[in-house]
Every structure is written in C-alpha cells, then in structure tokens.
C-alpha cells in the first residue's frame, strides 16, 4: 500500500509535469517517468507482462517517436499561441476546447464506470496471474479474441501504409 501511494504520487507529479513543462522534450521525459511508474504499478498487481509491454511499446517506441518529432521540429520552448497574459477564454482556441471537452468526457465516463461497478476488474485471480499474466492473456487472446487480434494486425497495416504515404518524398517528374 505504501509503495502504491509512492508510485501513484510520482505518476501524478510526472503527469502534471507533462502538461506544465514549457519545453516539449521535458514533457516527453516526464511522460517517460509516468510510464515507468505505471509499469511499476502493473508489477504490483502481478501483471508483469503488461509492465514489460508498457516499457517496450510506450517508453521504447512511443516516447522515442515523440522525442523524434520534437527533434525534427526544433525542440525549443513552445510559444503559447494565445499569449501568456491573455484571458483564459481568449487562450481557449478550438483544439484546446475540444481537448478539454473530450478530457472531461473521459473523466466522467471512467468515474461513472468505477462508481457503478461496471469497470471492476478481476481481483486476486492468482491462477490467471501466476505466470505474469502471459499465459492468461494468451489463453483468451488467441482463442476467444482471435478476431480482434487479427483486426489489430489490419490496424497496424493501415498505420504502416499511412506512414509510408505520409513520408513519400515530393514527386519529381
């Protein structure tokens, strides 16, 4: 319990750091810290496989991608689009407005799910989690959820084709 509180506080602090940092690289590094603490929390609920995935995919690939974009576009301090000393409403551009609405929507949905008990998870299922949840995940992912699994590969394929199309150099005829 004590460890959980420590990790949760670090995760929260890192999350605050992500949105308050003026440099995008710092934001990405705070996000990395956040992911690392999340991995620790996964380990605490005996989901070691998810912890490894968290590090490999999020820290090893997604953060690298973020840092990469930041390096590509420069990496200096962000200029606040609306100006720092303007009023709150004036700085609320439409992307920020949408982000705010969506964020609040997610918060409400998760909160409702938790309070109404619809988001309760399997607890203390030692048999399922004994193997670091790998066997448990494999047992359902490749049998009951075979179709979503194949669809995931289609999704990845679409992402890849999109990436190739985006990175095409301008045509020189």
């Amino acid at each position, binding site marked *: 319990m004590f460890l959980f509180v420590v990790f949760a506080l670090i995760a929260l602090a890192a999350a605050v750091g992500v949105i308050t940092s003026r440099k995008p690289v710092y934001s990405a590094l705070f996000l990395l810290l956040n992911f690392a603490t999340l991995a620790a929390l996964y*380990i605490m609920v005996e989901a070691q496989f998810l912890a490894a995935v968290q590090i490999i995919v999020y820290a090893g690939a997604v953060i690298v991608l973020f840092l990469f974009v930041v390096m*590509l576009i420069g990496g200096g301090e962000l200029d606040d689009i609306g100006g720092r000393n303007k009023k709150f409403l004036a700085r609320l551009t439409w992307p920020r407005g949408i982000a705010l609405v969506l964020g609040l929507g997610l918060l409400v949905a998760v909160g409702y799910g938790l309070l109404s008990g619809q988001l309760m998870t399997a607890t203390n299922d030692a048999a399922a989690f004994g193997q670091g949840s790998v066997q448990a995940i494999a047992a359902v992912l*490749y049998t009951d959820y075979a179709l979503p*699994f194949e669809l995931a590969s289609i999704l*990845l394929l679409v992402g*890849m084709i999109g*990436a190739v199309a985006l*990175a095409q150099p301008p045509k020189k005829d």
Partner: protein
Amino acid sequence: MLSQYAFIGIFAVIAFALPVIGLVLSWLIRPKKSNPAKTTTYECGMETIGDTWVQFKAQYYLYALIFVVFDVEAIFVFPWAVAYNKLGLYALVEMALFIAILLGGLLYAWRKKALEWH
C-alpha cells in the same frame, strides 16, 4: 513472485545510484576551471554557424513509424510463443495470418521505395 520484482526494484535503485555516486565522486576531486572558450560547441575548431536544431530528413521518421508497427507485432508474438504448446494448430494459422498481413505492409513499403534512402 513479487519478491522477485522487489529485487528488480532494489537493483534498479542501485543501478541508477552507481553512476550518480561516480559523478559526485568525480565532482569532488576534479578541477573546475571553466572559461567561455572551453564551453563553446565542439565542431572541429570551427565556430558553429546557425541554430543546432535545424530541419532534418523526414525519412528518419518513417523508420521510427515502421518500427512502432513491428514492435507491437513482436509484442503480440511473445505470449503466443510462450503458450504455443497449449494453443495448438489454431494458433499457428492465426499467427501466420497476422504476420502475413504485416508482411504485406512491409512489402508495400518496399515496393513504394520507402525503405530506400532518398
């Protein structure tokens, strides 16, 4: 089970503490006589021109994107590989299909010359 990871936690603390201890130690005993010429950017003796963070080739980014796709694929392979003995023939067909679809993506990138260096 958790005690194994307690070791990893303690080990991680030691692993990251060692470089810090080393750096503190060297900070204590090394000379500290800095001057502006010493702290200039190293560029083989030339004064550096312009901003460091200039625009780079976007193609580096493509490799990163393809990497993310295949990284996720590789992650899907691991639980399959561990449980393969229990899953049986069905799993083989499933994974063959999964890999075939992604290989299609790789072939597409290949044919579009996205893997070449422009």
